[in-house]
């Protein structure tokens, strides 16, 4: 009988990640933690509700410093949200991205800074204006070395 022998190398490269809650195997007494296996926390999950429409931006300037926004902070921006009164919004006005609070008044739409050195901006039909996205979180580096 003609038999063919093929030699294969062992595959040691596949990984299969499993949650780790093993306190050693002892017959009869399973670890009480075994029932509570959960995955670790993912910051994306907490900060990003709509991943496909969430973008990041970087703060430049100081017109929002009274609400805690400083140069270098990272903004989490959700494009899918509808603008509302009081929203912190990334707007595109006359060729530039800016971040302000949206204020809807009888007189129209205002962009409100959070710094007394700056004046509110009224948006008129003269402006090339759009609300680009709504800021959902801002991230600040507190570890300044």
């Amino acid at each position: 009988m003609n038999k063919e022998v093929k030699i294969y190398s062992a595959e040691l490269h596949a990984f299969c990640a499993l949650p780790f809650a093993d306190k050693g195997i002892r017959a009869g007494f399973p670890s009480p933690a075994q029932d509570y296996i959960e995955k670790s926390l993912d910051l994306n999950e907490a900060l990003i509700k709509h991943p496909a429409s969430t973008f990041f931006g970087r703060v430049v300037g100081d017109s929002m410093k009274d609400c805690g926004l400083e140069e270098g902070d990272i903004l989490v921006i959700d494009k899918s949200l509808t603008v509302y009164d009081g929203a912190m919004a990334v707007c595109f006005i006359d060729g530039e991205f800016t971040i302000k609070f949206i204020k809807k008044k009888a007189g129209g739409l205002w962009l409100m800074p959070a710094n007394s050195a700056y004046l509110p901006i009224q948006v008129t039909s003269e402006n090339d204006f759009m609300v680009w996205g709504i800021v959902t979180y801002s991230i600040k580096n507190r570890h300044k070395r």
Partner: protein
Amino acid sequence: MFGLLDCNNFYVSCERVFNPALCQKPVLVLSNNDGCVIARSNEAKALGIQMGTPAYQLKRVIEREKIHVFSSNYALYADMSGRVMQLLESCVPAMEVYSIDEAFLDLTGITQLTSFGRKIIQMVMRGTGIPVSLGIASTKTLAKVANKFAKKYQSYQHVCLIDTQEKREKALRLTNISDVWGIGHRLTEKLHQEGVKTAYDFTCLPRAWVRQNLHLGGLCVWQELQGEKCLDLEQEEMEKKQICTSRSFGEMVTELSVLKEAIATHAARCAAKLRKQNGCVVSLVVFISTNVHRTDLPQYWKSQLVSLLVPSDDTREIVTAALHGLEQIYKQGYNYKKAGVILTEIVAKVPFQQDLFDEKNHEKAFRLMQAIDQINGFYHECKIRLAVEGTGRRWRLKQEKRSLCYTTNWRELIRIRT
């Protein structure tokens, strides 16, 4: 029913999302090396600029019409494409990503198709800023036809539904046969000889004739245009049977040492792609060529097949093989414009037959490659590379007008003034 969703002027639209000042202005995106036009805004189309026009021929009109010109930024386009596809996935039972800017949607069981389509389009626009158009019909080929109408005529408001015989016939009468999906250049010529000008003319040919003269591929298109479903969604992401990396040089290259850098870089890139799909390469092809447009210069084009002793996914082995191939075909005295590496035969990584004389420590090599992939993945560029790949100063792409990688590089986020 099938839907074909297509992003309008996709690359231009991506640029506009992060630079809204470009809206309503003429915009062009150029191919690798800023060679020729690969995307046009409607305003640029209206100026008569054709797809594929070499950039240098447009210098004057670009200046005169103040056209905004960009080098292609594939990192950005790929990321935005992923976002569009992710949104679509959430609202249809099944879909097939057909290209970077197109997807077929399974619309089975959905009533009120037009209003459903409008909702999808609005959702994509709001979520990503990318404008899209949708064609809906009973077959994929007809959905493609419908999509063209959705794009071309504003009155459709980006959704065109072909759901009756009258609509189907009318659309096919207005569609050139060469514009039909699956009808290539050669088939078009053949059909022109038969007096076929429009898609409608084609559907009037007898089935037997189509079958005999155009074989199964042609028959499939013919049936699909009649509304008979032949093609289904292809959902399984097919593993690439070949992997290719090639680039034109920023300037012409003559020395072997510079070509070596380029070939090594391309081979390393192929190797990284290969590992991503858990493959091993059995054989590869290296090619180099001069600039075909420079008929005033001597021309040379040559490729070389190289087989590996043992199937491999190790950058070092793949680069060595590719350089070996290059040395066989390099000839002095030519101005080279392009070089590339194609992995032509790929096998699954496990389990492969071992070579009796193979003394390599595969485990160690695997860990090394994994570490390199992780580091390079983290920085989104090839920070770690073989010395032979060089720095690419002499041959790297010209990308003089590339926008920033707003969505894939922390250092290039959009800057927002407070």
